[in-house]
């Protein structure tokens, strides 16, 4: 089965792509939605313009579709992007990095169901600490590119989350009660290197 990955450049979609590849699926393309609305419920990716660099290092074609990011209308743009991926790269399914967000997962499931293609959410309901440990163990180099939660100040921006960083992050998450995987938008991440990259992305 050939899959398209809804790809933001962050830890979740990058790891979901790797899991799909590891399980023997062919990744036909990455699908990135660039939203003009920074408050979008579906797509919020501050480093979205750097996704092309990641796609190049992964040697996977990239489809970029722009959206104004208006609630629900942005789903029409997502559907257009998936339709384009089906037509151009003959994908039979879509992979997402959804962990807890029923809002996001439901909307992608509905689009895939309408288009009669499979939908895969390999991180669904995954424990946040387990997810971070898997990222580190599997040599994903993840940095924070924005922060928006009590306990996370600007010194975290650009910082790589390695074992030491994760310990610190876990303590802050427990103290300030933010979601360790940032499911509430507490921070955004960017993957600068992964087992799927030829070399590290310089930003």
């Amino acid at each position, binding site marked *: *089965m050939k899959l398209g990955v809804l790809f933001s450049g962050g830890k979740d979609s990058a790891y979901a792509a790797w*899991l*799909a590849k590891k*399980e*023997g*699926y062919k990744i036909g393309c990455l699908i990135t939605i660039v939203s003009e609305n920074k408050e979008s419920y579906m797509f919020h990716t501050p480093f979205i313009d750097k996704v092309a660099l990641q796609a190049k290092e992964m040697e996977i074609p990239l489809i970029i579709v722009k959206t104004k990011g208006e609630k629900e209308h942005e789903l029409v743009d997502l559907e257009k992007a998936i339709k384009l991926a089906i037509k151009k790269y003959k994908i039979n399914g879509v*992979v997402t990095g959804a962990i807890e967000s*029923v809002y996001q997962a*439901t909307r992608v*499931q*509905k689009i*895939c*169901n309408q288009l*009669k293609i*499979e*939908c*895969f*959410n*390999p*991180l*669904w*309901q*995954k*424990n946040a600490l387990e997810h971070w440990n898997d990222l580190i163990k599997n040599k994903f180099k993840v940095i924070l590119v924005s922060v928006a939660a009590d306990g996370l100040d600007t010194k975290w921006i650009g910082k790589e989350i390695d074992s030491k960083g994760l310990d610190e992050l876990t303590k802050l998450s427990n103290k300030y009660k933010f979601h360790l995987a940032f499911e509430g938008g507490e921070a955004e991440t960017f993957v600068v290197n992964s087992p799927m990259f030829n070399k590290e992305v310089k930003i």
Partner: protein
Amino acid sequence: MILVINICNERLHYLEFVKPICDILDNNNQKYFVKSYDEVSKTTLDKCNKVIICGTSLFDNEFTKYLDKFNWILNFNKPILGICGGMQIIGLVFGGKIRKMTEIGFYSEYFDRDFLGLSEKCEVYHLHNNYVDFSKLAFNIFCGNEFRTSHSDLGYLGKKISKSKCSQAVKHKEKEIYCVLFHPEVRQKELFLNFLSK
């Protein structure tokens, strides 16, 4: 020992439909083992004291071609919990028929009496294109099938209307066989613990 049965046709769906249930069992120090439905043997069934049949994706109906692999359910006397596709399998084995109904996302459902800890109004996560109607099978319906009609003599309970025409939560009239069409691993994790206490 709990037997967790994987019915997913696609390997990657294991992480979405089976692993979350294994995580709940792990977090509650429960011993379990996972088998694909085509690997279930008499030895496997003898080894376990409870069975959970997990769900699968919206388009994955491959299991319906191999229903003979589930005939053991008819003569099995240990507790079983069927989730979504697992519920459909149990319904089909007991003589039900597949019907079409797509429900994706959160829905409010009403339970007319306690079902593994769920009662009254609950928001549950649906992900199905099909269901099996249990209303004519040897099962009691706790949620779904517009129970106001069938339970109009139940006083205040009869005032609550299940929005769903599907059988959403059922239990066999004589055996400890429980089925839910929704996915309790998303928001009703306690349901598994109540099942395990049976």
